[in-house]
């Protein structure tokens, strides 16, 4: 399985090299090369997975199916876009003396480690290894977040480190519990955390333990995803980190964390009726969606704005998975993809704006369409896509989620307590429509907040002393491509991606 090797080696190699190389152009070249290799190998993997179905490689260490392939696609696409964008961005930072040139090495090293960790977390067969990898992402990114070394960035980094580590260790307890439950069923102890081992026997695992395990996993990885109420680190981190890093955090890391939760859910759903996990996911999803909508309403810092919109969209995706069914799950996955694209676009735009206006205050940014036409377009498109307006793909995915919600409702979740079983059914026709109404209300609130700020920044005349006009850089290429993808997917899904989505859906639905 050569592709897998490449995928694992490329970032490692690049990381090692970027510690020793000193010319920035060379660093970027390495970066692009490794990302290119990554994307290429992902394409190969996708093709094999689509043709042959799930495969294991490197002696049971790697397990690849449509779902992980799909996540890999997101990692590759956003990663590549980021490395294109970084070129001009980082160079300008160095030129402006924000960071010493030598620190570029550290930056790139951490960046590659970050990517590597995410790849491992995606392809790992063992739940334990996956955990290790995800913890590694935290460690790799915490310095990237505090990269500017300002007071605020330090604070953000510290909060990120503490909260995520705590969350992650809770997740580890979940893993331990899973292992604990699997012991009695599986003979071979050393393999007992491998999906390939767990999934076939999952229905014989003890439901009690799995329930507890899932809760720990959900809270733990949920912190990483940024689900309310474990989200608190997210706005700070997104505000302080460099734009390309945030693009990766928002676009990819969240997705990987969601993936980890979904993997766990697959195991649990075998033993426990899926309404349990679904209910929990939908619960947290709604919490995130509604809360984020309100926070979006009162933002005056555009990076925080996007941060909260990330929370909102993760909430939407979670609702999709929680509602379940082909529709909801498909919509959820599709939404992950769209959000990754739209959000990285948004943060690229944010980066450009910050470079030109030197402020994150929305009030101080005006007349973008005159000052930076391309960025203005990017901002507008990302804003519209993030508020799920047609013709952008996010509209399609959000439509699927809400349709699933209105058609199935949240499957009545069993709240078992010592007082006996009590159920809350949220699936009769009217409460379904009611839930859809809540969904739409929050969506409209978020839209209002987002568009109010967006338009305020885009239109008008730029303030004095802000240069007008925008020169074409390599950083604009990903912006264009992402925009095109966002619009295109709204009307027409490329067959491979559609197959990937469909197979991933059926995997998640355990059939």
């Amino acid at each position, binding site marked *: 399985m050569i592709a897998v090797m490449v995928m694992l080696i490329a970032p490692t190699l690049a990381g090692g090299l970027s510690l020793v190389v000193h010319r920035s152009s060379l660093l970027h070249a390495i970066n692009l090369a490794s990302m290119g290799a990554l994307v290429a190998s992902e394409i190969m993997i996708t093709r094999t997975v689509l043709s042959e179905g799930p495969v294991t490689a490197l002696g049971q260490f790697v397990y690849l199916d449509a779902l992980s392939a799909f996540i890999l696609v997101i990692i590759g696409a956003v990663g590549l876009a980021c490395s294109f964008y970084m070129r001009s961005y980082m160079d300008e930072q160095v030129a402006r003396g924000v960071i010493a040139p030598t620190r570029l090495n550290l930056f790139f090293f951490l960046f590659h480690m970050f990517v590597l960790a995410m790849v491992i977390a995606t392809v790992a067969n063992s739940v334990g290894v996956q955990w290790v990898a995800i913890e590694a992402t935290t460690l790799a990114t915490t310095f990237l977040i505090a990269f500017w070394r300002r007071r605020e960035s330090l604070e953000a980094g510290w909060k990120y480190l503490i909260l995520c580590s705590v969350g992650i260790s809770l997740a580890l307890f979940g893993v331990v519990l899973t292992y604990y439950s699997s012991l009695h069923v599986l003979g071979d102890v050393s393999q007992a955390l491998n999906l390939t081992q767990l999934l076939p026997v999952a229905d014989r695992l003890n439901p009690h333990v799995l329930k*507890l395990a899932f809760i720990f996993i959900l809270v733990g990885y949920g912190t990483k995803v940024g689900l309310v109420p474990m989200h608190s680190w997210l706005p700070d981190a997104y505000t302080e980190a460099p734009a390309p890093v945030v693009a990766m955090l928002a676009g990819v890391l969240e997705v990987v964390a969601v993936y980890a939760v979904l993997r766990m859910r697959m195991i649990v759903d075998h033993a426990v009726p899926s309404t349990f996990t679904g209910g929990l996911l939908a619960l947290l999803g709604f919490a995130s969606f509604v809360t984020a909508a309100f926070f979006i*309403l009162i933002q005056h810092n555009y990076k925080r704005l996007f941060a909260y919109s990330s929370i909102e969209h993760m909430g939407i995706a979670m609702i999709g998975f929680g509602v379940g069914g082909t529709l909801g799950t498909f919509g959820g996955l599709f939404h992950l993809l769209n959000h990754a694209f739209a959000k990285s676009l948004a943060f690229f735009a944010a980066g450009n704006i910050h470079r030109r206006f030197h402020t994150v205050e929305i009030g101080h940014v005006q007349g973008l369409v005159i000052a930076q036409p391309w960025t203005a377009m990017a901002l507008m498109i990302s804003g519209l896509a993030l508020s799920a307006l*047609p*013709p952008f793909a996010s509209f399609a995915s959000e*439509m699927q989620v809400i349709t699933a919600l209105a058609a199935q409702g949240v499957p009545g979740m069993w709240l078992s307590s*010592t007082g006996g079983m009590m159920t809350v059914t949220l699936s009769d*026709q*009217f409460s379904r*429509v009611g839930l859809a109404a809540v969904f739409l209300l929050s969506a409209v609130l978020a839209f209002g907040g987002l568009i109010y700020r967006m338009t305020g920044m885009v239109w008008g005349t730029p303030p004095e002393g802000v240069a007008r006009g925008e020169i074409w850089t390599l950083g604009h290429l990903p912006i264009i491509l992402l925009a095109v993808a966002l619009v295109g997917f*709204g009307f027409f899904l490329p067959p491979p991606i559609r197959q990937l989505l469909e197979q991933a859906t059926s995997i998640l639905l355990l059939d």
Partner: protein
Amino acid sequence: MNLFLLLFACYLVGILLPLCFPANPRIQNLLAHGFAGLASGAGIVLGITGLLLPEAWTVSAQSTVPFLSFAIRLDSLASFFVLTISLAGLATSVFAMGYVTEFCGRVSMGTLGSLFNGFLLSMTLVVLADNGFFFLIVWELMSLLSYFLVVTEHEKADVRYAGLFYFIMTHVGTAFILMTFLVFFQGGGSFSFEAFRHPEHPLPEGMRTLAFLMALIGFGTKAGIVPLHVWLPYAHPAAPSHISALMSGVMIKTAIYALMRIYFDFLGGQFPWWWGFVVLVIGAASALLGVMYALMEHDLKSLLAYHSVENIGIILLGIGAGMIFQSYGLKELAALGLLAGLYHTINHAMFKALLFLGAGSLLYATHTRNMEEYGGLLRRMPWTGFFFLIGAVSISALPPTNGFVSEWLVFQSLFLSFHISDIFLKLMLPLAAAILALTGALALVCFAKAFGISFLALPRSTQARHAEEVPVPMRMGMTILAVACVALGLGPMVVVPLLDRVVSPFAGVSIGGTMVAMDGWALAPMNVEFSSLSTPALALLLVVLSILGVGFAVAAGGRVNIRRYKTWGCGINLTPRMGYTATGFVQPIKRVFSAVYQPTVKLETEFLNESRYFAKRRHFEFHIEPLFQKYLYDPLIAFFTTMADRLRIIQAGSLHLYLTYIFVTLIALLLLAV
């Protein structure tokens, strides 16, 4: 089929091609609006053929995106609206060729042109779409593009505000529309309109009612019914005038289309009487309040925008009456009501577009929208003045123009309410008629003001003094619409049978034959006994009799030549300041209806030092209370923002607090699960 492809292709080219010549605004202008003209020409033919087709023509292509299928269905209703849209589209594109030169340099012609094409295309697709998902996409595209067109002059703060307000309101509307479709989805598990029409398991009564209300609110927001109209008087004037013409004339009609589609097509015209009554009441309220607020406007374009609210109200009066009759099983009357509503729809599209183009010409010539700064323009811009007069006469529903015909039909359908068994409705519909009468009269006053103050008397500003007649393309654009107004007024006997083809499927009865009486000379809603109208005859009468008047003058054999002398100003030379202003003109009305306006007047007088009896200067200003903003919208916004502010404490910045969240969540969930 080919026609549709032609239309589609032309619009597409019109969208793309202008962007290929970034350097040359003139070429961009010609390309964009030329192709728009071609496309809408094709649209006109398509609409007419569609009206004549025996049954609906459909075509669809499935997309790889779930639910989404590009389904087109050209039935009589759709064709009627395609026709309306394309007529207005043709006129505006011709007009635009001249008009957009005003923006040259400030705005990119290419962008403006391709947005214009895209806007027209999206509107056409809205009425053609046969799949809920596809409909939503093109619907939102329509809103989006119109938003971008509204903020064309985004340097102005008020334009930005207007655009934002419009965008958010229309999106709220879309949310309700989405709800409607979700309700329908319950029935068939699919978004295709076919499934909406014939759901596998019919919706329960409650769901149907929900759909009714949601659709009313959702599409009502776009149509600008009271109290959802507040965005309209901001957004329509802010756009470039040819866009305002489209928005006010045509775009809000797509909402009427959708309402018809949902109530009579999807819900099969089976509903309780109170649905129709609700629509009727909303119609009456919109008509009256719309015209009342219009009276107080002295910004010509805002005035026109408010009149759109009024006319939507009139249309809804017709449709509401139709719905009531429908629920009482009075098929013919239902057909009549709907027919009246639709007739007014196309009429309003024509004269409102015409008036907006006229306003655009004034803007072009004087660079101001404030009527107080106009005056005496009829002699400087005779053509514009003449066209504007036609528009004004039509919108004031004066015989023999088109506005009169459709309003007459609405009156008839309201008067025929005595066929209903329920006495409450027997009384309510005539009351609605009375309100309609008041509305009509006030509209007349309003346009007497609009035309009189702008075009007559002496110029009140230097711009007005030096205004010049607008270039030929603009005049041509207005000519098309003016001709349409007159034709629709004089030829109802031709139009009515065509409209009958639209409504007969819904009402389940064809009244086109019975309505044309006196071998094609007169219109007789129920029977010639009850009422009849022949605009050609009236027109003939008017012409002959005015000739008679001239005849008398000649016969009396007085001196033919006229002596010209200045107006009697009590011995002082006449100055513009002596003439009546718009404010002064409507002062009595403001006072009579002060309950509605709640006007606040401020008068500061600065006296001469010598004597307290002579004023040096007086400063007068008044403004009226925007009731709905004050008592409906502001509280709502305040509610949400305060709630959001309350939530700030969640994110207080303390790490310990955040850890506590995780802790509590974990324990809570664990307790849930055990």
